């Protein structure tokens, strides 16, 4: 860092500037309370001097020198600010570099050794800087109160602070690089380390303060003066509204390079532990003017907001996953529960809620043709048809199917309600005659002629059937009292070998000799089986007894006969 630039410069202006600075320094603090032109003038001069001295280090600064005449305090301050903002960031970078590579500091100090002459001044300035560092805090306290009147002073003080810091940094480095043997250097090295630690602590502390409280402080400047990472992070902050980045930044400051390469999901979307703290600070960032007291009350409600804001912080992927999970859960739940009645198979009215069938759109087959809509045309057509049929005389009357005579109608002896023409004697006479069989008369009491006619017709039909073998019609069965032999029809020779059924033969029930319900042995129950056996035994016993009796009789007869014969 070229310190020659500081010493170089316009002689009269620099001396004037220095004079002004000294003057400001020498004045008592209470004198600042009341506005004085001398002080303000001195302050302006000092500001100009400082500005111009700092100008070489700020290439981007739009102003060549501080414009003081006729400018407001605010305007002057803005100019200074414009200059110092980039300066601070560059300084930060340098400090980081020195942190990594302490050797460079040596180089600097080697350079600085050449300018040992200035060390005294520098030391003085350092000591002044130390003093002024101590005064900084005092100045900080006064800042708010002296806004209007002592703006310039404030600016000056701030500038002084900054310069002191820079000076300290520079000189600290220079002295360290000067060699370890010198006590002052050793001490300065240590001081440097301490200072660095302090600075870091302050940074972190300041950051914590921010989380708890205000943001519009030097921390802003500190942060913005950081490396690109922090810039990026800030951008991310602004974009994603996440505080986690800040915390990550704290961790990443040490390992910025590595972290970038192995950036993970958690780095971007923060662990759940860090979220709480950052949430708080984030909240309070949002509401700028919250006091520390207000923060405490909000901490209690932070837990609730944590969870809700966790959800807000979910990525799209996580959101989709969540949705999917919820749908899966829903479906599983639905599967476990019993199905709605519409999904079940056969549902009776008792199994579904009342009137539920009305609400459901049922669809079922109608096996019935829909009733015809009666229109005038329909009725006209019907009437036409009716009239036509009447004229034709063609009615679709139901005709009874002709019943086939299964057997000859039995001769029903009707009750004759007239006086019988025959005398009783004659009736009996006839009866007797029939019984004795002297005169063959008809079995059934019917007209002789009718019988004869019937017989003739039957013969005719038989002959006709014989002519047509293919369409067999069986003879109508007529109950006769003639004795039928249970012989198959084929055995009896007919005119034509018709396939006559043996319906005329004895029917199975006629063949059957037995009575009652015949059961096979397998169909019998145990009790029935016992009954049968008992019956059989009884029969057998009876037969045996009879036989015995017969034997006895026989034997007794024999005895008697023998006895008779003997005697």
């Amino acid at each position, binding site marked *: 860092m070229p310190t020659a630039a500081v010493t170089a410069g316009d002689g009269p202006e620099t001396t004037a500037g220095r004079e002004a600075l000294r003057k400001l320094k020498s004045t008592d603090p209470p004198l600042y309370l009341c506005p004085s032109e001398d002080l303000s003038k001195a302050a302006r001069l000092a500001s100009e001097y400082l500005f111009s001295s700092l100008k070489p280090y700020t290439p981007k600064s739009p102003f060549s020198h501080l414009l003081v005449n006729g400018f407001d305090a605010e305007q002057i301050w803005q100019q200074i600010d414009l200059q110092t903002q980039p300066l601070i960031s560059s300084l930060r970078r340098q400090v980081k570099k020195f942190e990594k590579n302490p050797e460079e500091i040596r180089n600097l100090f080697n350079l600085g050794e050449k300018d040992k002459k200035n060390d005294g001044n520098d030391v003085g300035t350092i000591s002044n800087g130390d003093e002024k560092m101590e005064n900084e805090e005092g100045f900080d306290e006064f800042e708010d109160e002296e806004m209007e009147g002592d703006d310039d002073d404030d600016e000056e003080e701030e500038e002084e602070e900054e310069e002191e810091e820079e000076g300290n940094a520079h000189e600290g480095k220079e002295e360290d690089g000067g060699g370890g043997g010198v006590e002052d250097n050793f001490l300065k090295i240590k001081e440097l380390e301490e200072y660095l630690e302090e600075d870091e602590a302050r940074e972190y502390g300041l950051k914590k303060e921010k989380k708890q409280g205000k943001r519009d402080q030097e921390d802003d400047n500190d942060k913005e003066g950081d490396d690109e990472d922090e810039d990026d992070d800030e951008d991310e902050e602004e974009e994603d509204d996440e505080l986690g980045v800040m915390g990550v930044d704290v961790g990443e400051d040490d390992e910025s390079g590595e972290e970038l390469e192995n950036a993970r999901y958690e780095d971007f979307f923060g662990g759940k532990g860090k979220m709480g703290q950052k949430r708080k600070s984030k909240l309070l960032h949002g509401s700028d003017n919250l006091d520390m007291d207000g923060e405490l009350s909000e901490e209690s409600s932070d837990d609730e907001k944590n969870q809700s804001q966790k959800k807000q912080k979910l990525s799209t992927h996580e959101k989709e996953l969540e949705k999917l999970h919820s749908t899966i859960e829903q479906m599983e739940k639905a599967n476990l529960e019993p199905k709605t009645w519409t999904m079940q198979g056969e549902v009776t009215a008792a199994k579904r809620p009342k009137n539920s069938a009305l609400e459901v759109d049922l669809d079922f087959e109608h096996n019935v043709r829909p009733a015809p809509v009666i229109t005038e045309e329909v009725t006209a057509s019907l009437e036409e048809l009716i009239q036509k049929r009447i004229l034709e005389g063609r009615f679709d009357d139901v005709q009874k199917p002709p019943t086939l005579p299964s057997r000859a109608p039995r001769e029903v*002896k009707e*009750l*004759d*309600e*007239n*006086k*019988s023409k025959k*005398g*009783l*004697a*004659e*009736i*009996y*006479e006839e*009866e007797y005659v*029939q*019984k004795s069989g002297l005169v063959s008369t008809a079995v059934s009491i019917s007209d002789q002629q009718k019988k004869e006619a019937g017989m003739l017709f039957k013969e005719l039909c038989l002959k006709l059937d014989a002519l047509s073998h293919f369409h067999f019609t069986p003879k109508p069965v007529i109950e006769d009292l003639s004795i039928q032999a249970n012989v198959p029809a084929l055995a009896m020779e007919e005119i034509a070998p018709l396939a006559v059924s043996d319906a005329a033969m004895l029917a199975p029930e006629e063949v059957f000799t037995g009575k009652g319900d015949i059961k096979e042995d397998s169909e019998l129950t145990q009790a029935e089986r016992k009954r049968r056996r008992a019956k059989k035994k009884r029969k057998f016993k009876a037969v045996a007894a009879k036989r015995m009796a017969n034997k006895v009789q026989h034997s007794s007869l024999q005895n008697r006969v023998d006895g008779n014969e003997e005697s």
Partner: protein
Amino acid sequence: MEVENTSSSLPVKPNFQPLKAHEISSGQVQFRKVPVPPHRYTPLKKAWMEIYTPIYDQMKIDIRMNLKGRKVELKTRPDTPDISNLQKCADFVHAFMLGFDVCDAVSLLRLDELYVESFEIKDVKTLRGEHLSRAIGRLSGKGGKTKFAIENSTRTRIVIADTKIHILGSFANIKIARDSLCSLILGSPAGKVYSKLRAVTARLAERF
């Protein structure tokens, strides 16, 4: 011992002819007298010859009408073949007197096992006044059709004389007729009696 003797030389079994009526009564004549009720007097006069002829010619029984005593008298002849003829003729005449037709009563002469049964309505059920009249009407039926129906179906002859009922026929048939008549007296309608009769007669006819 005695048994043996008899078994070795048994006398010829005598062969006795049936005794004639005379001999049974040891030569005495037997009479039967049948009183004639007044309402049968005229029919008797009309049907006399029909009555007389079978009795005298076939049964060989003397018959005469005692006008004064209003009786029909029957007497055995010496050539009456069987003593039962007299009884039969008496029954025959008696049946006529009850009200039966001659042709119906003649069956008594020809068949042995025909009988005449008589009973009164009051034997079945005590009916008075109109009930009695109605019962009688029920028995006969309209124009006598119920009575004829019973007669025809059961091969009997029925005479309903006021409160007295006479049935002529064989024993079983009399029973059937009597049952139907009794059911009619007791109040069953004619249709019911008819159906029963039909069933009975069908059974009767099946026997042959």
